[in-house]
């Protein structure tokens, strides 16, 4: 098997294959980073909706809570299939990339909402009262007092979840999004040995995920020290 790999390697790492894998890599990165960033934005909105000091509206709070609790309990693959067929059956023209992106956003929002809620709740209630005594409105309190402090707690785990979403995007290969896993499958179908295809892709995933995770852990330590 090894001599087969050695024999194939120059052909596998040829110019066009490298471009092919490079494009797939860019797609994986775009999918996970855009998805995670937008999703985390929505997550904060959900957390704000659920905060009793910010929104008195009970139905909104219940809706946000339901979304967060239920969407975290559906596997990524099932969510992907639901979004995929919902797009298809509604007749909306969307690229496969968009469908996968929507799925990442939907799950990232649910996970980030939980972290953001923990972050907001970590700020003791007297700070809200103190800000109110200083004649701060509730949004100004959130923006000037609570949010800057809660970022310390919220930011590091978000990197961990980003790694999770980079890994989840591999499932998007199931609907045919041209990302790393799909590229590996195509190269494998073209006749390159499985070890070469999937080994290379595993290594690339590792090279994206490991620095991200490492950065999050370092950030956590640095923020904890302050």
């Amino acid at each position, binding site marked *: 098997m090894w001599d087969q790999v050695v024999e194939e390697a120059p052909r596998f790492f040829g110019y066009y294959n490298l471009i092919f894998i490079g494009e797939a890599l860019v797609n994986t990165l775009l999918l996970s980073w855009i998805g995670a960033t937008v999703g985390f934005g929505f997550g904060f909105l959900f957390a704000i909706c659920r905060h009793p000091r910010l929104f008195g509206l009970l139905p909104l709070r219940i809706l946000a809570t339901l979304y967060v609790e239920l969407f975290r*309990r559906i596997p990524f693959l*099932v969510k992907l299939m639901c979004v995929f067929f919902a797009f298809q059956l509604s007749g909306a023209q969307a690229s496969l990339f968009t469908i996968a992106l929507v799925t990442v956003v939907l799950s990232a929002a649910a996970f980030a909402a939980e972290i953001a809620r923990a972050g907001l709740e970590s700020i003791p209630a007297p700070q809200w009262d103190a800000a109110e005594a200083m004649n701060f409105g509730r949004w100004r309190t959130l923006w000037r007092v609570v949010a800057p402090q809660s970022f310390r707690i919220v930011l590091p785990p978000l990197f961990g979840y980003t790694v999770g979403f980079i890994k989840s995007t*591999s499932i998007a290969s199931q609907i045919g999004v041209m990302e790393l896993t799909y590229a590996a499958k195509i190269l494998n179908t073209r006749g390159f040995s*499985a070890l070469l295809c999937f080994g290379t892709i595993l290594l690339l995933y590792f090279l994206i995920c490991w620095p991200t995770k490492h950065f999050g852990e370092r950030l956590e330590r640095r923020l904890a020290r302050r």
Partner: protein
Amino acid sequence: MSYTLIYSQVSGHIPYLLAGAWLTLQLACISFFIGWGIGLVNAAVLAYGPRPARMAVRAYVTFFINTPLLVQIFFIFFVLPDMGILLSPYAAVAIGMSLNAGAYLTEIQRAGFGSLRRAEMDAAAAMGFSLVQTIWYVVLPHIAKALYPPLANQFIIQVMTTSIAAIFAVEELTGRAYNVNSLTFRALEVFSITAVIYIALTILCSLALALLGRWLFRVNAKVF
């Protein structure tokens, strides 16, 4: 274009899907317990093992945590046959999930071992506890309190990741959803029902685990 949801065509297949949920639980249990064993051994190696063994365990954990499970299973399923090891889809998925869970459970249990204090062991020795008594009355309650919630959480994650098995044509819940979809062509209905079954399944598991934790270890694991 508007699409009308018709659940009546799918509702007949719900028992079939629920039987798939049973297989999902099985797969989750197998991978969780094998992964737990791997994690336990690894955490012990990290705490007491020689340096090369510790480095090997760290490499294993870092690699498996930072690569997607799907590609790991692809690797096991497509590369091992080249080496002469032919695995059934079920076995490949079970092995992949166990190895993957093993990495996460190593991390979790390492933290649990770290929460144990030397002074407690000394105190137990001073009270004349035997080793078994020390483990049963001192170490276990302490570790259980620190470990039970993250372990329960990992089990729920395991239940959800089993859906990946569908990609390898294992007929668990998601795999059966694919089957029903190709029978009825009511895609949105099938997958929304599947999603609801997953939600119900994980909530039931969370509840059972929370009750078990309270009953066995007096740990307050949260359901939501």
